[in-house]
């Protein structure tokens, strides 16, 4: 393997560096003193709010709302404020475009252009690399990240999450940066995608010798690749005293993990070899009562289409991503849906939850679920379900009115923000119960149980990732559903939130709620127990009734 010419590993120097975001009272980082030697590989850890992403963005030269030199000249609380110095090779990052390359968390917004090769070339073009030199760089970068077999005009929208992250890495590599910055690059990926990305990063570092700074709370993934771990503490903890350093611990991985193990576990870091303690489930005495049954189900996110004039405007059913699924959901039992990316796990779960119309087959609610009276629902309002005596509903969840649905089947989406409907945490929790005419007693219980009491007046959009997840679970449960459907509930969560969530769900299960979860997380499914429904990839599973229909790639995660 020939080494890339022109890659000069970068050095990072921080002296008393701090950053306060515009409009925030406290700095995200303050008093940071840090030296990173050229070629060093650093894993950056710390509790949420320790300013890890802020530091990476600063090194990438993208902080400061696009206005260069917005370093608090006005001293206004509305403006961002920078203190001390942060330098790459002795110069400010903003002055050296392309010296550092950043890969962020969300695969979808890492892609700029619609063809593979163009996207990789984009950064090199911006750095005014001569055109003749760009395409060799593009091919080399794609080879390095393991995407070399795809044609250069391959559509980027057809890539999986792991492939998109590797594409982003290739786009960075084509710029030949001396410093690689990775901001939780694998948080949204399945286990196979995580390894793909990690291995690609390792290969590229071995080849170029570039400096690496990676932020990630799953230490096990990166431990063997890095040679130093730096633990930061929140800027708010350092500025009051003015003496504490922002760096809490700094050293080789094994030493840091040995010395600071308990502290890291306390901060929610995923320390290798440690599975957070969770509540164990009570052994089930007898089989649960049937709530939902799917028979010969075929699912797709596409809606049926009308054929053209030549085909007489008949309805064309979309090609299902998964077909022939028969499964039952019972009280107090967990059902885990697993399988590779693109197998239609989320699509199946959303269809079971009455949110998508089945392409073929049926989802039917048993009387225990569709009927008005249930174990723990009280005072179901008749006012919102006209035409249904006693609040009873039909057997097809997709045809239920929204309020009939949420009182029976609750769905927690992968992205909590998609479900926020108000501007205040308390209103968010009250929303379901108020519309259903329920009492508000369960809301207090949920606030307490999911540690949201302190946050009742906050805006949901401003919460941290873990808080958003806890809130989204609480809001759905506030409507007393008998079936709870969760889509990748543990993605990107720290160990503390993970343990809370798993314990809480096992309690719900023991209390008789049915829990259906889509997950890649084997430890999480182990805590919940129950049955696993393993889906095969779509190539082998999907029947093809629609003859000329093309489905957009990547329609489902």
């Amino acid at each position, binding site marked *: 393997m020939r080494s890339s010419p022109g890659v000069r590993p970068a050095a990072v120097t921080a002296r008393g560096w701090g950053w306060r975001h515009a409009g925030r009272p406290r700095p995200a980082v303050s008093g940071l003193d840090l030296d990173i030697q050229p070629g060093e590989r650093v894993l950056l850890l710390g509790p949420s709010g320790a300013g890890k992403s802020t530091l990476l963005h600063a090194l990438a030269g993208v902080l400061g709302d696009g206005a260069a030199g917005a370093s608090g000249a006005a001293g206004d609380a509305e403006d961002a404020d920078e203190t001390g110095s942060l330098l790459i090779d002795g110069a400010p990052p903003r002055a050296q475009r392309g010296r550092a390359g*950043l890969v962020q968390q969300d695969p979808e917004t890492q892609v700029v252009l619609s063809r593979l090769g163009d996207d990789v*070339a984009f950064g*090199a073009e*911006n*750095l005014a690399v001569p055109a003749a030199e760009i*395409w060799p760089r593009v091919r080399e970068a794609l080879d390095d990240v393991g995407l070399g077999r795809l044609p250069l005009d391959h559509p980027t929208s057809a890539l999986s999450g792991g492939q998109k992250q590797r594409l982003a890495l290739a786009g960075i590599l084509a710029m030949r940066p001396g410093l690689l910055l990775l901001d939780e690059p694998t948080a949204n990926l399945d286990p196979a995608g995580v390894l793909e990305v990690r291995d690609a990063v390792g290969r590229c570092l071995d080849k170029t010798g570039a400096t690496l700074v990676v932020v990630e709370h799953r230490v096990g993934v990166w431990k063997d690749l890095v040679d130093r771990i730096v633990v930061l503490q929140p800027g708010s903890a350092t500025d009051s005293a003015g003496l504490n350093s922002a760096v809490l611990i700094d050293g080789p991985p094994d030493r840091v993990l040995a010395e600071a193990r308990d502290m890291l576990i306390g901060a929610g870091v995923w320390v290798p070899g440690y599975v957070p303690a969770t509540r164990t489930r009570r052994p089930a005495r007898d089989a649960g009562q049937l709530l939902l049954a799917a028979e010969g189900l075929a699912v797709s996110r596409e809606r049926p289409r009308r054929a053209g004039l030549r085909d007489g405007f008949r309805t064309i059913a979309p090609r299902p991503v998964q077909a022939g699924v028969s499964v039952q959901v019972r009280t107090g039992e967990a059902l885990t849906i697993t399988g590779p990316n693109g197998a239609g796990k989320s699509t199946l779960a959303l269809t079971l939850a009455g949110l998508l119309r089945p392409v073929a087959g049926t989802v039917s609610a048993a009387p225990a679920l569709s009927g008005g009276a249930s174990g723990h629902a009280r005072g179901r309002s008749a006012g919102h379900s006209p035409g249904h005596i006693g609040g009873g509903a039909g057997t097809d969840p997709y045809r239920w009115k*929204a309020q009939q649905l949420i009182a029976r089947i609750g*769905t927690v989406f992968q992205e909590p923000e998609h479900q926020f409907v108000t501007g205040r945490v308390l209103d968010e929790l009250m929303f*379901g119960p108020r519309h259903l005419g329920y009492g508000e007693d369960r809301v207090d219980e949920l606030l307490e149980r999911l540690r949201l009491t302190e946050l009742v007046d906050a805006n949901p959009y401003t919460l941290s990732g873990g808080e958003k997840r806890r809130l989204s679970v609480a809001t759905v449960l506030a409507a007393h559903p008998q079936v709870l459907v969760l889509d990748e509930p543990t993605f990107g969560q720290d160990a503390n939130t993970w343990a809370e969530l798993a314990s809480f769900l096992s309690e719900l299960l023991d209390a008789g709620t049915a829990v259906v979860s889509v997950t890649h997380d084997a430890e999480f499914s182990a805590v919940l127990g129950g049955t696993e429904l393993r889906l095969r990839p779509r190539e082998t599973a999907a029947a093809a009734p629609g003859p000329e229909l093309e489905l957009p790639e990547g329609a489902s995660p």
Partner: protein
Amino acid sequence: MRDALSLRGNHALLTRANPLAKFTAVTLITLVLALSIDWVSASVALAFELLLLPLAGLTLALLWQRGWPLILAAALGGWSTAILAPDAGSVLVDAGIWSISAGSLQLGIGFMLRGLAIALPAVLLMSCTDPTDLADALAQNAKLPHRFVLGTLAAMRLVGIMAEQWQTIGMARRARGVGSSGNPYQRFRATLGQSFGLLVQAIRSASRLAVTMEARGFGGAARTWARPSTFSGLDAWVLLGGLGIAAAAAAAALGAGTWNLVFLTHQ
């Protein structure tokens, strides 16, 4: 949806022409057709355009699939002109308040043909032009500011993502008990809420994408182009073709005496 504009699999001749040349040729034809309402110039242009379909990798079926709204609109326009225009010549159909006469039928057909002849080049252009290549040509050949052109191109990708997010947010809100049923006011409110959710997500995506682009050095003064947008002999033919169709249409109409400048029309 997201791949609707993709050209994968289309290797027709016109896909290799410079987008700017194609754009200019289309503009020429459209300009001439916009000048006159008559059926001769429109049908001559239309005939030539239909002959060009294979060069753009289009078949009649594909054309209908991509352009049916335009084709229906042209037909409707022609129909309403035929029944509503003042009668001239012998009356063919008379149904009381509306009637079709030889004159109004001719006007209607002219109107429909003209609509088709103007719409078809646009469908042709989009069928054989990749948006990325169009952006390259606009920035490199037409010298539009590259920040603007590439920013727009990247934003177009987000439109596809937003279509998926709209569906997801709709389901996510139903799962919170916000139904899209009820009286029109309730439905309006639900749509408003869903739009707000989409707006928030769109802003999130846009700012993340902006960081991605900035982190890849976007926005500097100097820039090179990995895909140089160049002109070839083919582009001369494309321009000549456009000019030829425009000239043939105008000449045929002048020769047949139907040339009828829009701004000089009088009853």
